[in-house]
């Protein structure tokens, strides 16, 4: 049972390294999907938003990690 819990924790931990980063990535994907599918924005623009958004989130998350907590 303990091993199953550890496996579950490992699985979740693989994708949720930092909660804020995970939520932000999911939000960007949802935003791009809405822009392309519902608003009719050119798919390439959506792709650029996805790429630039992910790059920005990465840098922001690393910088947040370097700040002392509190």
């Amino acid at each position, binding site marked *: 049972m303990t091993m199953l819990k550890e496996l579950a924790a490992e699985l979740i931990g693989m994708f949720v390294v930092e909660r804020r980063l995970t939520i932000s990535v999911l939000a960007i*994907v949802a935003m791009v999907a809405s822009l392309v599918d519902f608003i009719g924005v050119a798919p390439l623009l959506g792709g650029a938003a996805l790429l630039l958004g992910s790059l920005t989130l990465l840098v922001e998350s690393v910088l947040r990690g370097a700040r002392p907590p509190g």
Partner: protein
Amino acid sequence: MAWFTALPAVSAAFLASLVEVVEAFTIVLAVATLRGWRPAAIGTIVGLTTLAGVVLLLGPLLARVPITSLQLTIGVLLLLFGLGWLRKASLRAAGVIPLHDEEAIFAAETAQLGSQQQRVHRSLQWVAGITALKAVLLEGLEVVFIVIAVGAGRGLLLPASLGALAACALVLAAGAAVHRPLSRVPENTLKFGVGVMLSAFGVFWTGEGLGIPWPGQDLALLLFASLFLAAGLLGSSLARKLSLGFA
């Protein structure tokens, strides 16, 4: 199959597996050193068999999922996974969090098994076997995910699996030769590189799943990888300055 399609998938699977197998090997070696090779080998074989079962079970199931849904789901998961690795590797490169130390992990694992040895007298072999099994399963899960993620979207499951198996063989051969934790493997550099590749794959698959026609098709992966590499290095450099400012 074009080489520039297969190469990133195979190398991502190979390098990611190298990192994970080195970590699992350290714990299996600690078990073998303290309790002998039998429980270590049994735990490892049971762990590898379970992981192979997961791949064999998931492979045919994934073939039934519509390709765009598969690309979107795997793309998002890869993006989350890759950015997580890249974030951690950037922070380690900046000196904000300590580097992964295989020697220290080996010592800690040996000490923990040693303390269990004093407490549990009858089931030592069992505890040692379970420890090896757990290490192989926990580290192997990431390998399985990466193999499936980089392989399933374009029918590259077999080449990606071969990349992972080659990493296993390399670590086992090196481990058998030196009989010590493989502490000289540049783990953070590998993690950084794999994080870059997985993040690039993540954006690529997510975009494909959303119907985005990437210019240059698969070659766009190279551009994405270059940009994630630059962003990771920039983040690491800024993080180092920031942490020094707070020190």
